[in-house]
Each structure stands twice: as C-alpha cells, then as structure tokens.
C-alpha cells in the first residue's frame, strides 16, 4: 500500500529563517513520482515540483529546495530565508507509474511565517 506521512502538522518560524518540511513515503513500486503542492490561505492548490523515483538529484528553485533520498524514503522540502508569503499548507504526494494510479496526499503541514 502507498502512504505519505507528513509528521509536522504545524510549524511556525520567524521571517528570514530557513525551514524544512518533512515527507516520508511508503510504496512497493520501483517507479513512482513524488510531488509537493502549496495551498495558500486563498485556497488554491499550486503545483511546486515533481520528482521521478529514478532521479535522486536534489533540486533548487530560488529559495526552494528539495532533498530526495530513496534510502530513507524521504522527500523533504526546504524554504530558505522564509517570507510571510510562504505561509500556507504544504502537501507532499506520491503516485505510481501508471495512468490508473492515484495520487496519495499526505495530511499537509501548515506553515506560519511570522513577521
């Protein structure tokens, strides 16, 4: 069975601090995809990144970076120099390789960036 665990329910940090959101997954598939989505207070779901299970390179996009480690089944997300606009609920998600595979979402981590 597939499972995504975001153990941090809620995190608060002061603006400009770095913050890491943890994501641990379980799957029996050898090929799978991992995702991060952002849900700001306005409610929409914004796609941030997709990572293929065969690509363990870390990714950096501006102040965002992702650390994918198959050995620990983790796909952590770090925001550097956080800003108030980063306040949101962040979801980690997992899907299998096939068209019929569902995306399984974690329960989300609510991130508060305090001014």
């Amino acid at each position, binding site marked *: 069975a597939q499972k995504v665990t975001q153990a941090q329910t809620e995190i608060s940090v002061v603006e400009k601090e770095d913050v890491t959101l943890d994501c641990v997954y379980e799957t029996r598939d050898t090929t799978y995809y991992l*995702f991060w989505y952002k*849900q700001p207070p306005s*409610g*929409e779901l914004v796609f941030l990144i997709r990572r293929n299970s065969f690509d363990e390179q870390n990714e950096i996009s501006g102040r965002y970076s992702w650390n994918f480690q198959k050995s620990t089944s983790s796909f952590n997300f770090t925001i550097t120099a956080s800003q108030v606009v980063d306040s949101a*609920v962040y979801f980690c998600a997992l899907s299998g390789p096939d*068209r019929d595979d*569902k995306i399984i979402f974690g*329960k989300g981590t609510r991130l508060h960036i305090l001014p």
Partner: protein
Amino acid sequence: DTAVSQTPKYLVTQMGNDKSIKCEQNLGHDTMYWYKQDSKKFLKIMFSYNNKELIINETVPNRFSPKSPDKAHLNLHINSLELGDSAVYFCASSHIETQYFGPGTRLLVL
C-alpha cells in the same frame, strides 16, 4: 487564461437538494479528477476520467455522479445533499503524472 476552472466558486444549499459543479480545462490534458478536501484539509480522490472513460472510482456514495461530456470537461452532480458533503471540491487535470488543480468549489450544506 485559467488552466483549470470550476464553477461555482461557492455553493450554499439546503440538505436534500441536488447540485452540480462544473469543471473545464484548456490544457489539452487527457485525464481529469475530482477531489474532496475536508475541514481538516485532508485531500482524497473521488473520481478520475481519461478521455471520457471512468478509470478511478473511489468508495464514494452513489449520490455523487461524475459526467464527462468531452475530455475538456468533468462535471460533478450530487443528489440529495447531506450535511457531511460540506467540503471543498477540487477538479484537476493531468497529461502524464503531474496534476494541475482548479481553484476549488466551497460547498456548504445547511
């Protein structure tokens, strides 16, 4: 231009009513989805269609019926609304693995 759009954005209705939510995507994607997000922000897939064919049908009451007139549209009809149906409903579409979501429809059943 909005990639995935949903109407209405807000829906307030009485228990027992029937309502529909419409979804349209202009991304040329083959697959569309409906998700329900509860008050605790938990996101759960309800249905998935690929080229108008139902491919995922989770354990959802049969009061919920999706309809896909073409691959750019996936509507959700809900019969006999119940209090527990109050939630945010998201439509999404995908071409390969990445799903892009609509803005959500906030349904409140009184």
